[in-house]
């Protein structure tokens, strides 16, 4: 492994945009679509996932010399499942209603490809503090993406935001947005926005590089 200078802040920032788990890497789509019907659910799910990401990243990174290569996947799964169980009970202790709203999707954090992917590809090769920053960045990126989808669905689907009524009584809610198909549509809308911004950026980058190239010659 090439020892390049890794800056914790960079590891944090990259999860927000350049490597955003949901919009760019398309990881962890199941919970992103399933529990994003209200903003508050999206936020809770994002927080739970972030916690598991950070703790799993930290543990894997601390134990990286202790775990032999052959047993690594099973060890990672075991560690992740442990933290998910903890989160499951913690949410139950905080609010039964929230636990009911999120349903089985808390337990399903275990099979979120994002977490195993980061543990395997990043945390197992980096120092603990960098792994934590990476997990935090990815987690926040995931939460923000979920929140974006959740806000669109809740505002259009129920006319509320975080449970607060936004519109006067005349607003006809787009019920389809709180239904499963609304999840797909909201995600598609954001994906279009992200793709559009990226394309513009690429074009701008090309132009500037061409300009600098001309200037150099």
């Amino acid at each position, binding site marked *: 492994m090439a020892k390049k200078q890794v800056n914790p802040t960079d590891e944090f920032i990259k999860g927000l945009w350049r490597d955003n788990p949901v919009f760019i890497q398309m990881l962890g789509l199941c919970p992103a679509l399933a529990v994003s019907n209200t903003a508050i659910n999206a936020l809770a799910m994002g927080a739970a996932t972030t916690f598991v990401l950070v703790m799993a990243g930290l543990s894997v990174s601390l134990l990286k010399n202790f775990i*032999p290569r*052959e*047993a690594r996947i099973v060890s990672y799964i*075991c*560690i992740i499942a*442990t*933290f998910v169980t903890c989160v499951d*009970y*913690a949410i139950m202790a905080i609010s039964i209603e929230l636990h009911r709203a999120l349903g089985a999707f808390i337990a399903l954090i275990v099979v979120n490809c994002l977490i195993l992917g980061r543990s395997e590809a990043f945390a197992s090769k980096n120092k603990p503090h960098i792994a934590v920053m990476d997990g935090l960045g990815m987690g926040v990126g995931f939460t923000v993406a979920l929140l974006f989808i959740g806000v669109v669905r809740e505002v259009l689907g129920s006319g509320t935001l975080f449970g607060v009524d936004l519109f006067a009584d005349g607003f006809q809610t787009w*019920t389809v947005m709180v239904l499963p198909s609304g999840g797909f549509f909201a995600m598609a809308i954001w994906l279009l926005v992200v793709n559009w911004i990226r394309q513009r950026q690429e074009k701008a980058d090309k132009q500037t590089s061409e300009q600098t190239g001309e200037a150099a010659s």
Partner: protein
Amino acid sequence: MNTPAPPQQKPTTVWQMYRSIVGIGAFCALLIVSVYQGTSARIADNRARFLSSAIEEVLPAVRSTVEVSLDESGSLVAAAEAADLPAYLGYDENGDLVGAVITARGMGYADNITVLYSYSFELQAIVGHKVLESKETPGLGDKVELEPHFLANFEALDARLNEDGTALANAIVTVKEGEKTEAWQLDGITGATITSDAIGSILNQASSYWLPALERDARDFQPPQSIEE
């Protein structure tokens, strides 16, 4: 990605595998058990609070409850352990029996619907309902929790028993919106036909199961003293 294996890597010995798996297992077990221990009291507390607020919603006069179940012979006994679909006898602050609160479940439009409803011994009628769990279509199926004329059904939904006390005198059914003529009929909701039908059949089924025993035994039932709050 094809990261080349570090050159100096030694083959993993059985001992190393064993050590790491047992170590991680122990670490995980410790963590899970301590979290479980740490949260179990609060979770039980939350559950109880959730239940009592739900019961208060369907039967406001209740101050304390006793969970009951039916034994093999069909008579009413205090429940030995928490059931999946429990039923409770509700007592007011003087310790007098005011009603029963019953959980029931049945198939709705999309998935199972679980409801909590209350039965008044005085009126011999169902006097309140609350949907605990449903995945019905928002805006349509969830009207059973919101629609005023549907909720008005539960001012006193007749659930009298027949003369032998063995079954409901009149089966509880849902009729089309605006066609309710009898006290045991549920005025349905147009646009949520299947869901309101489902509520009717859930109530009918659960009442046929519980009410004969409740009517026969509940008045003589001695609540265990320790459970009173």
